[in-house]
């Protein structure tokens, strides 16, 4: 059992290294000379930069060394969370990231709460009463929810609530009224996705053979539903939660841009438009790390729930 956990950790570590290697590799494709860019950003303007300073930066940053050396040099700093200085904001990248991540997490949490409140009942009822009008209504709304581009939904909400009804502020970060629309925008796709997966998980579990055997042995319906079906249906749901975090991150990038919500997504957009390389690199690395961690946790929970694949 122990060496299985070790194997899973080793695999996750390999993915971590791969992600860092890939992130750093992307820098190589950046057009223009990295040293020039850093020099311009630090000392302002093309005219104030001459050959000597570029050479000096190159040596200091070790940009003239072979790629692998630069990568290791950079990796050593990454491990101690020193992701360099943002070219535009002069603040340490890590500082920027985790302050902004707190706000994205707030938004994500509210979206998840909305998703669970709506998706769980509709998903389960849809699965149990398959084919009823309630179920087909749920399925249709879910498909529309998944297909709706969340930035368009954001704009529609703004038109509706801010422009026409003047109930909610158009954008910005402040009290709860600022959070309503972004949470709804981010939550819609999440709710639709969870409803679909939950419904198919319930349907699949209801068709398994052992249910008839359980009832034939006299096990009460309450126990069959409450214990057996629930835990078996939990397994596909766990994988969904893992994927949901991916959707949240993607949704956050857009929702935060539409509502100017100061989160990690918004930071990413500004970083990319400013061509702020260290910040882009830091953000991509951070999201990759969050993902590797979440996939690892989902894998551990999945193996805990399903003994059949525990040792595979």
């Amino acid at each position, binding site marked *: 059992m122990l060496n299985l956990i070790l194997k899973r950790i080793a695999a996750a570590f390999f993915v971590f290294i791969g992600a860092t290697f890939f992130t750093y590799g992307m820098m190589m494709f950046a057009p223009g000379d990295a040293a020039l860019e850093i020099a311009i950003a630090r000392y302002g303007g093309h005219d104030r930069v001459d050959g000597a300073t570029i050479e000096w930066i190159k040596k200091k940053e070790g940009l003239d060394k072979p790629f692998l050396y630069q990568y290791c040099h950079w990796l050593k700093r990454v491990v101690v969370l020193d992701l360099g200085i943002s070219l535009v904001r002069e603040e340490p990248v890590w500082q920027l990231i985790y302050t902004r991540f707190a706000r994205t997490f707030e938004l994500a949490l509210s979206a998840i709460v909305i998703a669970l409140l709506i998706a769980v009942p509709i998903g389960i009822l849809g699965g149990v009463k398959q084919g009823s009008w309630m179920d087909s209504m749920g399925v249709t709304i879910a498909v529309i929810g998944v297909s709706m581009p969340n930035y368009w939904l954001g704009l529609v909400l703004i038109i509706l609530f801010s422009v026409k009804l003047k109930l909610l502020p158009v954008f910005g970060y402040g009290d709860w009224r600022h959070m309503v629309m972004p949470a709804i925008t981010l939550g819609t796709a999440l709710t639709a996705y969870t409803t679909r997966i939950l419904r198919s998980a319930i349907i699949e579990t209801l068709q398994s053979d052992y249910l008839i055997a359980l009832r034939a042995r*006299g096990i009460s319906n309450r126990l069959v539903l409450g214990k057996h079906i629930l835990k078996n249906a939990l397994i596909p749901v766990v994988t969904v939660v893992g994927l949901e975090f991916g959707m949240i991150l993607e949704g956050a990038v857009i929702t935060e841009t539409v509502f100017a919500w100061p989160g990690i997504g918004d930071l990413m957009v500004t970083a990319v438009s400013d061509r702020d390389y260290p910040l882009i690199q830091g953000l991509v690395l951070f999201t990759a790390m969050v993902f590797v961690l979440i996939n690892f946790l989902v894998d551990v929970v999945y193996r805990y*729930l399903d*003994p059949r694949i525990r040792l595979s």
Partner: protein
Amino acid sequence: MTLNKHVLLVENLVVDFPGMPTGSSVLRGVSLSLKQGEILGIVGESGCGKSVLARSLIRLESPAKIISGSILLDGQELTTKSQRELWRLRGRKISLALQDPRSAMDPIFMMGNQLKEVVSISHTGKSGKKQCNADILRKIYTLLNGVGIASPKERCRQYPHEWSRGMLQRAQLVMVSSASPEVLILDEITSALDPTISLQILDLIVRLKNEQNTGIILITHDLSIALEICDRVAVMQKGRIVEMGKVRKIFEQPVHPYTKLIVSCQGEEGCRGQLSEIRG
């Protein structure tokens, strides 16, 4: 042997699949009776409706539907009972064991856990919860030893995929008979097993009949199994019982042509003669 009372009486039971064309129902008027402490064998080729019959007797026949006919279990009419009332009957008065033992167990719960679920139905211990649990566990270990599963304590902590099919079938037998029901329906429980293992299971069935005096309906496609342990045999073809009677009589003087064919196929030279006109 004292005249045992009839525990199960079925009067021309008709069962149909919704959406099927009328007139081609799965069961076309099946009638049978089962006395206490008797093993009734139901023999038929695959597709003759014996599994649907098994599920209908315990009212788990959905998606099929009972059209007409009555099922009297110890005086109570099952066809009119609601699902809630049926819960109390299943396991205590009548229970059903299925063919593939591996798909009769929930794959993600420990075997001990699943055994406890069933055994606690019939456990009438008055003492506190913790004490009650210990009694149930002890009862499970004795039951498992009784059916020949060694070191039951470790086995109970394992999962269904770690047990062999033979052991799972024994566990299923323990589960369905733990509350000593009056009627026990066994749907082809030896077909998925190897010969020596199924011999052990048949031996367990006979022991069960003698100890608990239960009425057992043994459903199989293999007449030789019926000949081995059944008291009476019913031969089924396309949803109807074509012949029913004492085992010796059915084997020595079959009346219905279909029974003759099945009986002849058992013998050594048997079917060679009529091979030509039966196309595969």
